[in-house]
């Protein structure tokens, strides 16, 4: 709220919103007043405290304020929301990058369906102010004015009005809350659907070939139908709430009139009563959004809670110079920290690359990620003191490194001059391919390159990295044996002054290292 006041744009939007809401009520109220007063004046020409030109002027001003205020509120409010969005999304991105879940295996948002939900969460938070805070504030101001007028003119109507309004509003809030809960459930169902469809889509060949495609799809889309039905119920609840709220204004107007009748006000005395009644009628428009306001606020809360899961746990730490690491009896773990039953001992120092050789599933990659500070060390203090220092000191060359949409230059993540970039690309035998796609600055995408080429881009990134500890996960994956050996020998030669650890299941590649550490089989059966 205070934040809202500090931002000039939001302040303007807020003022405009309040102004336009008040003018809407004033416009109708003054018009009715004018009409009634004119009638009275025509019936009995007496000196009155009003002049027609002043009222005409007031009506015109109110009309223009209403139009201008609404337009300003909307355009300035949206501009402010969009502006917030830029900062907010950049912040979310940085937060996500610092979150543990990114580094610890099974990066979920890599999947498009999760990303969709993530973006809608971000949107719910982004627009909460516009959809909930602004309308709520203008409603509060107008509501206050109308109530003050009611208290001044027909105080005895206040009790029935309060009862009616609180019943209607609390009913609407209950319905809106239900709608928000249902929307959340629909979102969960959609997430299930997205997950399942993602898997079924990825395995469509095997489903078709195995004859189970129709059954699996039927089950998968069942979740989508269910989500749709739940979502529809939520919208119906909101509709219901809006239907009740739409009746609040007119019913209040009727009550005020009835109170006026009971109090025996007629003729000139009836004029203020009618004025208040008409004001309630005009304010009705402002009551209807209460349900949606509440709903938007709930959505915003939900979005924020979902985004909190990505809160950064990253701490800044200084990088270490080329480290000497002595690993003694380190237990092998799977990505979840479960022991895989082996222990390992080796030393890492600059100029003497270490190869970790072992079969799939023996915990090689996990060890590498633990060493890089990506997964918890779980075996006493980290050899580099803390995980954060390890992250700042190491470059982890992932076997499944991705390609960002953008140029090759952008994908190398380096500010080095072209000469160095090309030298690195040359070492991994990518120069002809780069020429083919149109040079360093031509747009490339994930599917422009083959898996082998992507692995080599990742090797080039490692070559260009300024980090002192370089960790390679399966540097020869997706490359044929001879090419892998040739390229990786060059990479090791160029990184001669750095500390290097790499994991592989290829003995020929391991033989390039100064030390080979055999990690044994996860299946010690003969």
């Amino acid at each position, binding site marked *: 709220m205070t934040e809202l006041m500090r931002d000039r744009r939001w302040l303007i939007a807020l003022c405009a919103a309040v102004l336009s809401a008040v003018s809407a009520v004033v416009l109708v109220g003054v018009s009715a007043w004018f009409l009634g007063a004119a009638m009275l004046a025509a019936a009995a020409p007496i000196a009155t405290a009003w002049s*027609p030109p002043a009222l005409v002027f007031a009506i015109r001003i109110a009309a223009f304020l209403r*139009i201008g205020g609404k337009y300003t509120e*909307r355009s300035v409010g949206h501009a402010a929301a*969009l502006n917030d969005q830029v900062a907010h999304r950049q912040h979310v991105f940085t937060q996500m*990058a610092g979150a543990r879940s990114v580094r610890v295996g099974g990066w979920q948002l890599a999947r498009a369906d999760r990303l969709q939900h993530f973006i809608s969460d971000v949107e719910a938070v982004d627009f909460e102010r516009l959809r909930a805070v602004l309308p709520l504030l203008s409603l509060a101001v107008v509501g206050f004015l109308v109530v003050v007028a009611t208290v001044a003119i027909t105080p005895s109507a206040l009790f029935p009005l309060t009862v009616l309004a609180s019943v209607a509003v609390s009913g609407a809030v209950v319905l809106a809350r239900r709608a928000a809960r249902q929307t959340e459930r629909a979102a969960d169902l959609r997430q299930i659907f997205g997950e399942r*469809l993602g898997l079924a*889509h990825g395995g469509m060949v095997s489903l078709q070939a195995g004859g189970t495609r129709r059954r699996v799809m039927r089950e998968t889309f069942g979740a989508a139908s269910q989500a749709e039905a739940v979502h*529809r119920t939520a919208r119906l609840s909101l509709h219901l709430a809006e239907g009740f709220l739409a009746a609040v204004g007119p019913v209040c107007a009727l009550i005020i009139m009835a109170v006026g009748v009971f109090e025996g006000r007629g003729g000139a005395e009836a004029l203020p009563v009618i004025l208040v009644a008409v004001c309630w009628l005009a304010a009705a428009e402002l009551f209807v959004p209460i349900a949606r306001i509440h709903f938007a606020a709930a959505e915003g809360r939900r979005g924020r809670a979902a985004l909190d899961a990505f809160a950064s746990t990253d701490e800044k730490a200084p990088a270490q110079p080329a480290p000497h690491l002595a690993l003694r009896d380190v237990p092998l773990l799977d990505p979840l920290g479960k022991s895989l039953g082996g222990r390992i001992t080796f030393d890492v120092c600059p100029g003497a690359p270490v190869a970790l050789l072992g079969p799939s599933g023996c915990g090689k990659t996990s060890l590498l990620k633990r060493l890089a500070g990506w997964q918890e060390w779980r075996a006493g203090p980290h050899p580099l003191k803390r995980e954060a220092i390890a992250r700042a000191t190491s470059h982890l060359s992932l076997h499944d490194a991705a390609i960002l949409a953008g140029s090759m230059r952008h994908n190398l*993540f380096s500010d080095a001059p072209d000469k160095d970039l090309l030298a690195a690309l040359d070492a991994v035998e990518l120069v002809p391919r780069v020429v083919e796609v149109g040079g360093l600055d031509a747009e490339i995408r994930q599917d422009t390159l083959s898996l082998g080429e992507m692995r080599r881009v990742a090797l080039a990134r490692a070559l260009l990295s300024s980090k002192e500890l370089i960790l390679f996960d399966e540097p020869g994956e997706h490359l044929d044996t001879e090419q892998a050996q040739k390229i990786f020998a060059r990479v090791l030669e160029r990184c001669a002054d750095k500390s290097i650890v790499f994991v592989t299941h290829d003995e020929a590649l391991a033989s390039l290292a100064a030390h080979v550490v055999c990690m044994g089989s996860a299946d010690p059966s003969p």
Partner: protein
Amino acid sequence: MRPTARMRHIPRMMRRSRKKPAQNKLAPLAAHLTPIIQRLRRLALVGQGTALALRLVALIVFAKAAGIMLTGGAGILPYLSFALVSLSGAVTASLIAARFSSQAEQVAAREVIGIYEGFAARAPVATAADMPAGELVMRVERHPEACASALVSIPNAKTMASLGALLTLTVIACVHWPSAIVLLSSLPLMIVAMIIVGKLTKRQADRQEEALHKLSARFADKVRCLPTILSADAVARERDRLGDDLRTYRDRAADVLRFAFMNSTVLDAFQAIGIAVLAISTALGILGQPTLVGFAGIGLTQGLIVLVLASEVYAPLRKYAEFYHKMSEGKTALEAVDPLVEAVPSHDARIPAEHFALRGAVSSIAGPYPDITLPKVGLVVISGPSGCGKTCLLRLLAGVEPADYGQVFRAAGGQAWAAADGYLGGYRLRDVFGRSARDRLAALAMQSDPRFADGGDTRIGLGAVALSGGQRLRLSVGAALASRAQTIFCDEPTAKLDDFGAQSIRDLLKEVAQERLVIAASHDRALIAAADVEVALEHRERIAT
């Protein structure tokens, strides 16, 4: 006689086909529209109309009561009670209408989900897999609702916009016709203004949509690559690039919104000015200084009724304008859904070969294949260098991808598929491997892996994301072998495995091949050596890139 009848038919069909694209883009989905949807939609419309009429009645009675009160008359309470009753009636009718409308939309949304299910379950694998999973998910989340509103609530809002305005105007004309003329004369002007602004908005909205797509794609791309970005310590760099994209989008979006809001401002302006003009003219008319013709001698009750009803003329139009955004969304969704209805083939297009064989087959992706004769049981290995179409041939034989020409056998006695990227998980090992789960794990060289320590009780999560590629592959092979399928297809069954693991898979396949037909695509020399039949493909240029 016959030829003439046919001759007469042809031009008619030609006429229809020429007309079709322009006249009815929504044909396939519209054909799905069951009479139930139409009936419910009409009921909703009747409800909305009733609600409007009752609301008008309530407002008129309210104005009448106010008029009587101002002139000091008595007997107002019956009027107020009547207004209250009409108002409750209006609320009830609108809620009933909302319910009908929701039901109609639900039926329509189910239809759309059904179309997507049909596409995902029955369209050719290449076509269905061609649409990225993320897009498919997004479509299934958005299109049912968008199509449902395009088919139900938007047409209803359209009807109500004209009907509502007309009905209210008629009532006002009955009360005081010069006011109706004032309001009526504002309508064409307003509609023209709305059309102009709408056109401008549309152009801007397209640009915004484009920027949004670009932004979402970039954002998605960055999030997808987060581990890579982290490993290269490039977070700050990417955040700045994201900022640039976001600012571009913000500027585009702000442009659109400025125009879009003008649209509702036009409505607001007419509503506010209409009320102001009427109020002023009526009051001055009562005072005996009329500024507009016909307002001299207007009564108070008349004036109040007109004033209260005036904003109701614009209300349905305003509601319709709110649908503006949804309208284009719905249209896009309907257009996107239609081709999917046609993408689902009605029958299996394969012409079965007589034996266990492939004859003269040509694939649109990999080109022509040599004729192959397969044994009834045994291990068949398709070999060849990378990119020669091994996997494609395997898919052709499995009936996953259709051949453009030629004949492909249809596997008898059921078939199964094993590959590292296969669909697996969502079960306990026992569900797939049966009681002998531990033996099967041993055969796959996974018995002492702590991840399968629970044997048959081990739960494999859907997608088996916690397992490594090699483990997934072995599990997939194991599941295929444990099934009763007579023909088993394996795509690179020994890739991603160390020597020990690969040898156990080779032994297993060889053993199973004594009773069943095992067809594998592989570049594993040891597996090729163990094959009963080798289908060696030669290197070829890729046809499609």
